[in-house]
Every structure is written in C-alpha cells, then in structure tokens.
C-alpha cells in the first residue's frame, strides 16, 4: 500500500491525542481510535498511524496490520465525493462488480485511488446492511440503490456542476 507523505500540523497531532484520550489511551480500543481518526482526517496516512501507535503505546507495525486488514480503512486521501461500492454477497450477486468496473472505466482510477482533480475516489465496502437495495453505491453520505451500469453515468452527472 502506498502512502502520501505529509507533515502533520500541531493541531492535527492535538486532535489525535484527544481522540486517543477519549478512549483512555487503551490499546484494546485501536479500531475505534482509527475509526474516529479516519472520520476526522478522511484517511490514515503513516504519520497519523505513528501518532496513534505512540498514544496507545503499541508498535506501529500492529497499527498498520489493522489498517491493512480492514478494507474500511484507507491510507490514501479520499476525493471530495468518495464513492463506495458495496461488494458484500447480496450486492455482488446482483452485479456490483459490473457497476464497479463502470466507475473505474469512466473515472479512469483503480479502487483505492482518487481522480487527479481530487474530486472522486473509489473504495469497496463489505455489506452495508441495505441488501434489499442491492447493489448499493454510496457517494459521501448519500445512498443509491439498485444501481445498474447504465445508472453510473447518471449518478456522476449529479456532481457535474459541483466543485
């Protein structure tokens, strides 16, 4: 997994410390701490993981192990409109892969990456709990159900005039 190099601002480090502190700096809360950190930063670059490791007093290798184990976590910055495609069983059976391929084709980026203009990124999720609507796609907080390959264009159109 590649990572983006950046220097954390003092305020970022402070924020991470607060997050860790809200979980009593307990090693057992690693997943929750990472969850909150990703919510705040949008992604988990190496530097963030180093601070988390330091705060919870665990090896950074362990943190990285957890980050790479769960597909929910990402080390790459997400686009302003992060597209998540559910590839859980129900969605998969009903064509999620074709939908995913269509997003990749149109946006010309692989899973886990962001378009050059920083607008869209593509990730895959496991079952998001809306199997009745399979296949499910989320753009930011907005959920789209029963998405077809033809529907992909229409979804992207909605964001055409956004920055």
């Amino acid at each position, binding site marked *: 997994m590649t990572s983006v190099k950046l220097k954390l601002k003092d305020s970022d480090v402070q924020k991470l410390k607060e997050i860790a502190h809200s979980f009593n700096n307990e090693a057992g809360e690693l997943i929750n701490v990472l969850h909150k950190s990703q919510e705040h930063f949008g992604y988990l670059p190496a530097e963030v993981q*180093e601070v988390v490791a330091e705060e919870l007093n665990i090896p950074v290798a362990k943190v990285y192990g957890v980050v*790479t184990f769960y597909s929910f976590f990402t080390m790459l910055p997400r686009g302003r409109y992060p597209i998540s495609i559910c590839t859980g069983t129900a969605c998969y059976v009903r064509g999620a892969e074709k939908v995913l391929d269509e997003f990749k084709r149109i946006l010309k980026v692989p899973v886990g990456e962001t378009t050059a203009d920083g607008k869209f990124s593509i990730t895959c999720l496991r079952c998001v709990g809306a199997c009745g609507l399979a296949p499910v796609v989320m753009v930011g907080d907005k959920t789209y159900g029963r998405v077809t390959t033809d529907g992909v264009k229409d979804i992207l159109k909605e964001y055409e005039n956004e920055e």
Partner: protein
Amino acid sequence: MELIKLTIDNRTVEVEKGTTIFLAAKQLDITIPTLCYMNLKDLNIEHKPGGCRICVVEVEGRRNLAPACATECSEGMVVKTHSVRVLNARRTVLELIISDHPFDCLVCAKSGMCDLQDMAIKLGVRDIPFKGEKSTYKPDFSPAIIRDMDKCIMCRRCETMCNDFQTVGVLSGIHRGFEAVVAPAFERDLDHSECTYCGQCVAVCPTAALTEVDHTLQLINDLSDPAKTVVVQTAPAVRAALGEEFGMEPGTLVTGKMVAALRQLGFNFVFDTDFAADLTIMEEGTELLDRLTRHLNGDKEVKMPILTSCCPGWVSFFEYHYPDLLDVPSTARSPQQMFGAIAKTYFAEKQQLNRKEMIVVSIMPCVAKKYECTREEFATDGNPDVDYSISTRELAKLIKSANIDFKALPDEDFDKPMGESTGAAVIFGTTGGVIEAATRTAYELHTGEELEKVDFEALRGFEGIRSATVNFKGVDINIGIAHGLGNARKLLDDVRAGKSDYHAIEIMACPGGCIGGGGQPLHHGDTSILKARSKAIYAEDEGKTLRKSHLNPDIIKLYDEYLGKPGSELAHKLLHTHYFDKKTRQISVD
C-alpha cells in the same frame, strides 16, 4: 488439579484439564506433526495460532477434524492421530501450502534445515495438484537479515518472538487472505524499522523467509587471496554449539576441533574473541568501579546503575526505545569490536601490516554482529575494524563444503597473542556470565584481596530476570540480570522511573544469552539444548587455570606495551564508543 482421561490411538492417557491433544499425545510419545506451532518451554512461550492445520486429528463424534495443537482434551475423548482420513487431510493441507511456495529447494538457503521441506518428505508429497497464483514480494536485504516473503507460510512465529518475547514489535501480520504476509510497518525495509537484528525471528522461522545475510562466499574469496592476511576470532558461545551441526550431543565442547578446522580452512591467524572479552572486563570493570566509588562517595552526578554494552542487539534496543538513557550503559565496545580495533592496530604493527592488507573475520552465534560490523563508528578511513561476521551455522556449512571430517579432527590451540583467555571470558557466552566475570575482577581490584571462590552461583540460571547481592567487603553490590529484550524492558522501565536499586545490570538480547543467539544451530523448539550449551560453557570455565580477566598475561602485556592502563586515552579511542538516538531518526523515514 482436575484430571481427565482420554484415548489416543487406542491407548488411555490421563492429563490435567486444559491440556491440548498435542501435549497429551506427547505423554504417550506420539508426536503429531506440526508446522506453525512452537513450544519454547524454558522461555514460557507457547505459540499456537492454529493456522496451518497440519496437526489435524480425528475426534470421535465430531464432524470436522480438530487441530491438535489448539484443541483441549475433554473427558472420554477418543482421538485418532493417523487414520486414513487424517493422513489424507494433512497431505492436502500441505499441498495447498506448497502450492503457494517457490519450488527452488535445491538452491535454497534453508535446504536441509527447513521444517516445510521436512514435512513434505515426512508426508510423502510427490506432486502438487493445485496450480494457482503464487504471491511475489520484493526481497528485503538489510545488513544482517534477508526477508524473502515468497517463502513465508504465515506461521507467525516470528511475530511472537519479536512482539511478545523481545517486545520490539517490528513485525506484524498485514493484509488478509491470499495477500496476508508478515512485515514491518508500512512494508518498509527492516533497515528502516526499529529492528535490533537480534535474529530471534530468524531462529524460529521454519522456512527461508527469514535468513541471515550470508558472507561465506566473500570469505572463501578472501581466504584464497594471497595478498590478504586473514585473521579470525571465535565467540565463546560458538564452541558450545558448533558440534551439534556435526551430529554431536548438545553441550559438547569443540574448542580444539574448531581451531583445527579454521586452520585447515586457511586462516592465517586463529584467535579468540575471549581475549577481547577479558579486555572488555578490564575496561568495563574499571568503569564500573569508578562510577561505583563516586556513587558511594555521594556523587549525585554519576549515573547508576551501569549497564553492560557487549550485545549489539541490546544496544540497538536502547538506542530506539530509551534514547533518554543513552548515558547509562557502559561505553565499552563489544568484545567483537574490541578485538577488531586491537587486531588492526596493535597486532598489525607487530606484524608490520597495513590494515588494508588485513581481513578480520568473526565467527559469532549472533545475527546482530553482522550489523554491528557495518556501524560507521567502528571503521577507520572507511576500513572496518571487523570486516564481516559469519554465524555458527555458516561456519558449519563452510567446514562441510571444504570436506573436512570435523569429528575426526585433533584438538589444536589458538594462536598467540590474541588467543589467550581466562575462564571469565568464556562465560560471556551465557546469561549472567558477563556480570560474573566483571564481579570477579571488580571485587579483587576494589578490595585488594583474592577471592576465595570465583564461582558466583547466585548469578547463574535461566530465569528471565535474576538478581543477587554480592558483598564487596562491607559494601553490598546489587546486581541485576536480564536475557531477552522483553525482560530487559522491565528493568529499564524501573531505571527510567528512578526506581532501580541496582548498581550493575547485565543485559543480553537472546534467550540464555549468546548460546541462544540468532546465528546458532537451530534448536527446533527444544530449549533444553540451550541449557546443555550453558553447562558446557561453565565446564570450560572450570577447566581453565586462569579464571579472572585481570590475570590474562597477554592482556597485561597489551596494557604494558601499548594501551597504558584501563581507561587511558588510547583505550578510550580504541575500545569505547558512544550511542545514538535512533528514535527520532526512525520516525517518518520512507
């Protein structure tokens, strides 16, 4: 204690509640094959991730086969360890593991010592019916260890050693499923991690996924170059283990045969690291006495306790994890490096050699020493004091490839002057030995009296952390000993918190000290071998006429002719060092 009765292969056995099927079968002398499982009894490490499923057995009444290493016995259980179903399942499991493994056994560094290869032979694998994708990773070449993750079978033993035993925490399982592998954070190279190169992961890796950097080819080239004078030094722990590679009983001392073999291999001078260990005691002992006297006289500036510094794995550990305590350890270099510095100055002058014409090689039980040779501060004008270090295992391979009949060799003696040593130097090879050697000398120098008994049994043993108080004629000296970095961490945390009562602490990175080093013959989980080696070391000490470092005549001569006295300016230049804060260096490198 509740007892449970069960039947294994039609024999009854009674075991304590909580015992696994694997250990119950062991009581009946049935060894169920295992691959990921590792039980290092004397170190209190039982690693049973239950991942490989090689150990499956049939349990009556259960639909699925059960992994023997991770399944507890229950009352009345009926177990079959070698039914047709079990044997077929085991072979299938192994075939699946091998299907994602390179087929280059013939040229593999681990060939002949590989647990996976042994298992394939044992289970009679003849073909791999599963042809699938194979994982490929970029190999990682550090100064001491090579990681070739194409050969990793995800047993995760290395993780247990690095995280639980050493508490270094460099290695972690990452990703999942087919992509799962063990790696340092962000898949950086080991060289960009906090790795201490202790080699304990190498010592337990069943395959060639983790191996030491091999210097034997370079050595063969140097030995056949007439323009070079090749000098060798052998660490104390090597002589207590080398014989194992030639089928000798663990604990057989092979000092004389080892010297003979080295001579036959063509070394110009066969010397002993033990000579330098005596020298270490002179320097470290003097430093200890100096600090102690100042401390006892109420000097608040002086740092206590003094920590030994002869283990490069341990040195890296505190450079990464305790940069705030860099002025606490002794500044004395390791015996390997003292030897190199003296060989390329004092001895070179005697022989009228330029250091560039010399190759100084060390034979070490250690992987970290390979890295230590490359530290910049141990070189003059880019020419290293010790050119490279080869492990006990590499030496054995070299002797075999040179067609030397090791067991039939006559005993020979080390060359002079750097081959002379005392019993105090020999015990450097086992946990507690360095501090015992230092105590023998410090006691006599401090009190001016001769010791009635040189053996300090209280300092010996195998417990991870030990302590003892030695009375220096009215002054109680508190001594601490730790082997394994996890144990060291506990003592260090106390020092950091200002809660430590010790005057001196010995720390060795490896289990049992250097006898359990990462470069030793593989113990394959049998830690009683380490104890046998330790015994051999104490036997060699006992057999020596001289057992105190300050009585070594060639050390006395070295000071007379060259160094002046311990702690002199020249001694400082050649035999002492300083440490670096590696924590800040390490963070955020790419």
